């Protein structure tokens, strides 16, 4: 069945790409700010199912308690991020988070777990000076995204399920973003969508690694589209590895996170010899040290030959008592039981797993980019978390900045003119996307098979751009990425475009490779160790030289700009400033 160039067109005010926490919050709040707006939400998968907010387990950080404060939350976030954060973005995060919890509870209908006295419960997470993580059991994201999705039904918002964006389209070469080229999975048809404002919220790219946590369809699409469209990307070397990804044999379940609340509640990490190895790395905080430290310690134990036969370490919650574990972590216990492990009574094999990309598109606190017409929110954006994200700040970011993007979109629509997307640009994107169709699909063992190319990329990233990096390895990774870019450009997919998973995989791997190149390039550039970025050839943190963000953009090598320490500087004591100095 031949595909023809995009016939269907669509006009709207706000086009939202992605339906995780950021996309749904943007849609609902743009609508509530201005119900006359024509809003369209698209998702690569099913709206309400696709995306990583749904996979949030532990919870949502917000300074609700009178003894806590946004200032304290801010300080934890900046210390956790090792001062690489954009402090105005981090400030927006901590100061909106309590209001978002109230909005979710009183307007969206989310119900978080309660304390015995009936008020919202907050639990302990790593790297935080206060127990501030709001949660719904140990599967918090399901409740948040399900209720946000329900609210779509209360509003006149158009939905396009299983419709991925292939490219952002400008109004003219070098102009503003005026829409996007969309591809409907079931029919293989393309839609050229025109919008006053596009909100990019497709989610991150950790699936470029052998072990990773996100849902399977997260393939760095937002980074790749933004990069091709001319946006600046910040700190792409900062990839978070979560310490406790489940090891599940030959299953894709491997890499799925066992939530941080387990360590918050006192679970131990053991090497194959039964030692609590964190004593060697952070004797004070032990398993409750930040994710970057715990993940790296696990990795070093495995590399030193103290890992288990399955290539991991052990997470042991059994001393907390079976009733406690089953009562507080039923979702985690069920997940373990499915693959034959008894979380409540015995150690479970775990591995560090690529979990969250702190880097992303450069935005301001209103989610604006340097590209008129384009807003970015959630994991597609960078800068909020610096060099390491605290557990519980991820869903907070998606919701806070999703809401901000929605409000900004509504505000900009009042003045933004309408511009038609450039059909020449759309036609070129269409031709590039359809090139693989009808080419022979090579076998996995011989030739340009997209699944084999993905596996090769994941191995190269895991081995060379993983938890501990060095210049030689990073150069090797960049060479491999170059070879794989060449190979994917020749990959084929069955000719029929309808529900064609092999074709989708080719497009996915193209995007993963863009994100991987950005990640490896920035990692090679930063010759120090900071947060999630550890260089064995430059093992110290170097504030004199590297208190800078690394930026990349198409057609321009990496460059740096100093971090604006607008509220808190390294070594400063006391509270961060409430108001940013001008």
């Amino acid at each position: 069945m031949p595909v023809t160039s995009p016939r269907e067109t669509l006009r709207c005010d706000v086009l939202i790409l992605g339906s995780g926490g950021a996309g749904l919050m943007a849609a609902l709040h743009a609508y509530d700010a201005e119900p006359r707006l024509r809003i369209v939400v698209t998702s690569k998968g099913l709206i309400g199912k696709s995306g990583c907010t749904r996979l949030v387990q532990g919870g949502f950080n917000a300074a609700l308690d009178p003894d806590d404060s946004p200032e304290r939350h801010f300080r934890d976030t900046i210390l956790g991020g090792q001062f690489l954060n954009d402090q105005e973005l981090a400030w927006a995060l901590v100061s909106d988070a309590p209001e978002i919890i109230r909005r979710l509870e009183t307007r969206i209908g989310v119900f978080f777990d309660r304390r015995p006295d009936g008020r919202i419960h907050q639990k302990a997470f790593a790297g935080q000076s206060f127990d501030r993580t709001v949660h719904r059991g140990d599967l918090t994201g399901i409740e948040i995204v399900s209720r946000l999705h329900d609210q779509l039904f209360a509003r006149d918002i158009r939905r396009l399920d299983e419709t991925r964006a292939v490219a952002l389209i400008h109004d003219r070469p070098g102009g503003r973003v005026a829409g996007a080229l969309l591809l409907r999975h079931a029919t293989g048809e393309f839609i050229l969508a025109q919008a006053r404002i596009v909100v990019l919220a497709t989610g991150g790219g950790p699936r470029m690694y052998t072990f990773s946590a996100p849902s399977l369809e997260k393939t760095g699409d937002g980074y790749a589209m933004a990069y091709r469209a001319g946006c600046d990307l910040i700190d792409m070397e900062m990839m978070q590895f979560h310490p406790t990804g489940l090891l599940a044999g030959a299953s894709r379940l491997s890499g799925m996170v066992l939530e941080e609340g387990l360590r918050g509640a006192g679970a131990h990490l053991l090497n194959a010899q039964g030692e609590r190895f964190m004593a060697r790395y952070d004797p004070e905080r032990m398993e409750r040290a930040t994710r970057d430290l715990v993940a790296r310690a696990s990795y070093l134990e495995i590399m030193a030959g103290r890992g288990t036969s399955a290539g991991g370490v052990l997470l042991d919650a059994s001393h907390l008592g079976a009733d406690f574990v089953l009562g507080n972590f039923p979702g985690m216990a069920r997940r373990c039981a499915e693959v034959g492990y008894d979380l409540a009574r015995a150690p479970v094999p775990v591995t560090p797993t690529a979990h969250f990309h702190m880097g992303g598109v450069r935005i301001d606190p209103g989610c604006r980019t340097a590209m008129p017409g384009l807003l970015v929110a959630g994991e597609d954006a960078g800068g909020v978390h610096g060099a390491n994200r605290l557990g519980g700040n991820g869903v907070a970011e998606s919701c806070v900045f999703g809401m901000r993007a929605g409000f900004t979109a509504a505000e900009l629509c009042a003045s933004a003119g309408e511009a038609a997307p450039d059909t020449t640009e759309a036609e070129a994107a269409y031709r590039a996307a359809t090139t693989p169709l009808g080419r022979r699909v090579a076998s996995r063992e011989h030739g340009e098979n997209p699944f084999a190319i993905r596996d090769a990329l994941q191995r190269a990233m895991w081995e060379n751009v993983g938890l501990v990096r060095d210049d030689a390895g990073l150069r090797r990774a960049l060479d491999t990425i170059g070879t794989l870019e060449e190979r994917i450009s020749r990959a084929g997919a069955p000719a029929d475009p309808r529900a064609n998973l092999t074709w989708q995989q080719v497009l996915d791997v193209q995007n993963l490779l863009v994100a991987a190149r950005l990640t490896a390039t920035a990692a090679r550039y930063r010759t120090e160790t900071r947060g999630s970025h550890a260089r064995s050839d430059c093992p110290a943190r170097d504030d004199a030289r590297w208190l800078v963000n690394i930026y990349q953009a198409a057609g321009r090598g990496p460059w740096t700009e100093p971090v604006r320490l607008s509220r808190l500087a390294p070594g400063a004591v006391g509270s961060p400033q409430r108001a940013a100095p001008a």
Partner: protein
Amino acid sequence: MPAGRKVSIRVRRFDPAAGGRRSWAAYDVDAGPMMSVLDALFWILEHQDPTLAFRYSCRAGMCGSCAMVINGREGLACAQRLEHLRAPVSVEPLRSLPVIKDLLVDLRPFFDKYRAVDPFYVGHAAAVLDPASEPAVVPRGDATREIVDRQIDCIACGACYSACPVVSIVPEFLGPAALNRAYAVAADARDTAGLERLRRVTADGGVFACHSVGNCVTVCPVGVNPLLSIQLLRKGAVHR
């Protein structure tokens, strides 16, 4: 099951838009340890048949994208391990829903009915965002809340809808998932739209069409009991 064993999988193939007929295709899958049915489908896609269509997302039982009929019974493909299943393993699309291709079904009828019960929470118009205020105080152990808490775990995968015999013969029946959601939101003490929603679910196609067969309870992959929600709605247990 030892690693590296071959497991026979029979997959229901169907391509209605191409005028095809329903057929079974058999594959011998290299089954490594702990592989799920979803892993097996990927193995087929990647090694044997690049045209196979199915739906997936989280692969960890949280999103409900990969519900299908496995050895005759609804379940999540990502949550069923090959080593626990009788071989040959048969895999079919969900029932009572149009097939787009192979195992990929069109969930619109399911979500249209979900939408029909007004599944969204309606808060007080003047819901307070004041930082000094506290969202609803609901003591632990509140009896209604304890039931609601279990019923909100629904991941809207469609397994119960597919397994329900009433859905298959009474086209207007809203089905277990939608009615369960109606109960969960109507019984939420914070919700203010209770009565309107109740009229909807007690009309034709609502709770009185249910025959209490209970397949919905049996197949639910996350332990929700839609039948209990239907029974509570019938008894008017959510009148406030």
